[in-house]
């Protein structure tokens, strides 16, 4: 086993909202035992499915979010024996992560406080839409509802002329759950570092609403310091005042984002001949374009607006890849707007071994999926196990009789 959390024993009682937190920890080397109800986690019913045929072991969504975990089915609602088994497992676990409604575990006799009383070193992290307390604590939510209430959605969308009457837009990929999962893991690791010193565990109350409320960048400071709400704009930062566009459609139909053009004089001097060889930006030799501040976006400068307008014409006549690489080779932090699957075509990330092969029901050859978000030199991120089949490790858990089940060598 590798990974900085190797040896850590984690019980996970999570569906969609909490499974990313469990994945982050499992992928860092922890032994995460996912306890699922009979029939399986609701996450197993979320598509896309392998070849569009649903089945508990065919959800690609589940495959991705449950790497490196083991699965045992216990009937915690219906069986006192299974609840006793869960208590035994919690007595020898380091961490328990759960995403049930506040108080739900207590109603079936598995209150986190009681589990902690039996194992004071245990860290219990509860992930909920709004936290364990407060007037909304028992409200229902979803990824989109979380992104709405927390504030991210109201900052994403369109200029009125691009899409009249368009609503605020939710970015896909369960980003509300992803951000909440990262915060949950912050809390778990901070508690773990405290426990390394003292031996003491604790309870962690992780609210999706809070995770998203503080993940809106300048949105909150604009209110706290200037009492202004920022307004959403097409493909660029929401702002207190309208800013010039950054988003451009290339000749091949793909979009590019140019957040700033030639901010420093050296790169500006290298960019001009490139464009001018294509017949664009002839006016940029005029001295009014010489100062970096005049070229900086987002400040209402007429020169910046003119540069961006000319860039629009240049890009419309050029393929996206040529603009992207040509800009980057001249120190411009530009980007192509890629679909998630298009990242697979960029050899840079294959150089780094980013995409990893995974296997599962219904496919003959391993398929690639995103791998490590971080490269550790001493304790590498590793795909040790694909997502478990439903109940794949139930027998091993029962056979261990309440002790932590050993991992069978694969």
């Amino acid at each position, binding site marked *: 086993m590798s990974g900085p959390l190797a040896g850590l024993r984690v019980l996970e009682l999570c569906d969609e909202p909490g499974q990313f937190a469990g994945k982050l920890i499992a992928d860092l080397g922890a032994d995460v035992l996912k306890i699922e109800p009979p029939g399986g986690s609701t996450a197993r019913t979320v598509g896309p499915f392998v070849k569009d045929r649903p089945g508990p072991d065919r959800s690609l969504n589940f495959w991705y979010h449950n790497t490196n975990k083991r699965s045992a089915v216990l009937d915690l609602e219906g069986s006192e024996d299974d609840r006793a088994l869960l208590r035994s497992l919690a007595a020898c676990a380091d961490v328990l992560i759960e995403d049930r409604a506040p108080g739900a575990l207590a109603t079936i006799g598995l209150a986190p406080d009681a589990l902690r009383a039996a194992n004071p070193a245990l860290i219990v992290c509860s992930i909920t839409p709004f936290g364990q307390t407060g007037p909304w604590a028992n409200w229902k*939510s979803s990824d989109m509802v979380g992104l709405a209430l927390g504030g991210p959605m109201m900052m994403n969308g369109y200029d009125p002329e691009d899409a009249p009457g368009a609503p605020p837009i939710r970015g896909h990929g369960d980003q509300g759950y992803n951000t909440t999962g990262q915060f949950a893991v912050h809390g778990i690791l901070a508690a773990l570092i405290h426990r390394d010193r003292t031996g003491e565990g604790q309870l962690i109350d992780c609210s999706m609403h809070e995770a998203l409320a503080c993940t*809106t960048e300048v949105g909150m400071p604009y209110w706290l310091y200037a009492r202004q709400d920022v307004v959403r704009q097409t493909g660029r930062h929401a702002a207190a005042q309208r800013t010039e566009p950054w988003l451009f459609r290339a000749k091949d139909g793909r979009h590019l984002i140019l957040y700033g053009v030639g901010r420093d004089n050296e790169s500006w001097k290298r960019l001009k001949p490139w464009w001018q060889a294509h017949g664009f930006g002839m006016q940029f030799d005029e001295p009014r374009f010489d100062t970096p501040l005049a070229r900086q976006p987002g400040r209402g400068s007429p020169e910046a607006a003119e540069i961006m307008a000319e860039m629009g014409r240049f890009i419309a006549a050029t393929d996206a890849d040529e603009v992207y690489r040509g800009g980057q080779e001249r120190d411009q932090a530009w*980007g192509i707007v890629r679909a998630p*699957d298009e990242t697979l075509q960029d050899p840079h990330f294959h150089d780094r071994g980013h995409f990893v092969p995974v296997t599962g029901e219904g496919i003959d050859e391993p398929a690639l999926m995103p791998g490590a978000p971080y490269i550790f030199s001493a304790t590498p991120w590793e795909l040790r196990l694909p997502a478990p089949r439903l109940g794949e490790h139930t027998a091993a858990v029962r056979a261990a009789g309440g002790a932590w089940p050993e991992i069978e060598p694969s």
Partner: protein
Amino acid sequence: MPELPLSGIRVCDLTWIIAGPTATRVLADFGAEVIRVEHGQAADAVRFGRPIVGDRPTMNNSGFWNYINRNKKSILLNARHPMGGDLLRKLIAASDVVVENFSSGIMASWGLDYPQLREIRPDIIYCSVSGFGHSGRDKAFTTWGPTAQALCGLTFTSGLPGYPPAGWGYSYMDHTAGYSAAVAIMAAIHHRNRTGEGQHIDISQIEAGIVLNGPAVLDFTVNGRSWRRAGMPPGNRAWEPRVAPHNTYPCAGEDSWLAIAVMNDAEWRALVMAMDEPPWAAEARFATNEARLANEDELDERIAAWTSEFTGYEAMELLQAAGVRAGVCQRASDKFERDPQLDARDWWHEVEHGELGPITYDGVLPKLSATPGSVRAAGPLIGQDTFSVLHDVLGMTPEEIAATEAMGVLM
């Protein structure tokens, strides 16, 4: 005051702009001693970042800089001066963690790549956050948050079908790369606690974003289906699971929206009850999820006609009381002025800032029962802790510090 979970951890913070400082904000919130090393002649551009308080930037009055740099210390040090370089090495020797988010290659040009850092302190945890990472053919390429989220797929997946990408209206990938770095650093601290071993953590901001869309990538590698196809991205309608109704609906008032997510038939019945059982909702073409998906345009129009009769908060209260997942698309002002949940959770904290007086911050999450994080101090004035760090951490005498300052090292 309760003990902080990361107390005793010292971080030499060489970060700037947003992604790196976001990582060290998490560490500082949980009690690490984060020392930002700054240079007045090459100050963090965000120190001039809007919103600012007053008419002109002073390096200390940026609301945004203060927002992401609370709980930290700031020292002034010219690391390019030979004596400044020596002091930086001493600070690294006294630190558990070094974090930076320069472009790949900058630290090496300072003589501070990982092997050299390790000579200074063998168990150092060194975390670098860059656009493309420190290896791979395009490692010299660079990103801002907006371009990182474009390159990793996140901008594309946010938008209405048939329209240009709406993307994210802020640097979500600066937040998220910072959050990933905080995860990695704390995991590495735990590993070091057990084994005594430090390490280098190489984070690519783009890879930290690619991992946020795994199922979309697998749908391509397993099913051959790209998100670049007609009808995608699906706006606020559900991708997976495919359920309806699932959208944002206009409410009374200007630019006011309510998100409603109905995940199954039981929640649909709850929504119909909450809408007072309008006759259209009883029709067979809305009876099952499949039927609702087939008639989604009309379904959304009908619900929009209902929500338009209420303010967002009225409709949200009504629906939540009936057990329907619903939430107002809140602005910053709404969170601060109208959100009872954040208030009840003591979310807002006021602390004194050296130049701006009392200022307000949001809170620390998640809440740890025994050793919670806290908002203890505002963002530091530039260099406000130079003397105390040189004196208390590096053990320099006031005379040595004065002599160093006289040579132009502490600026």
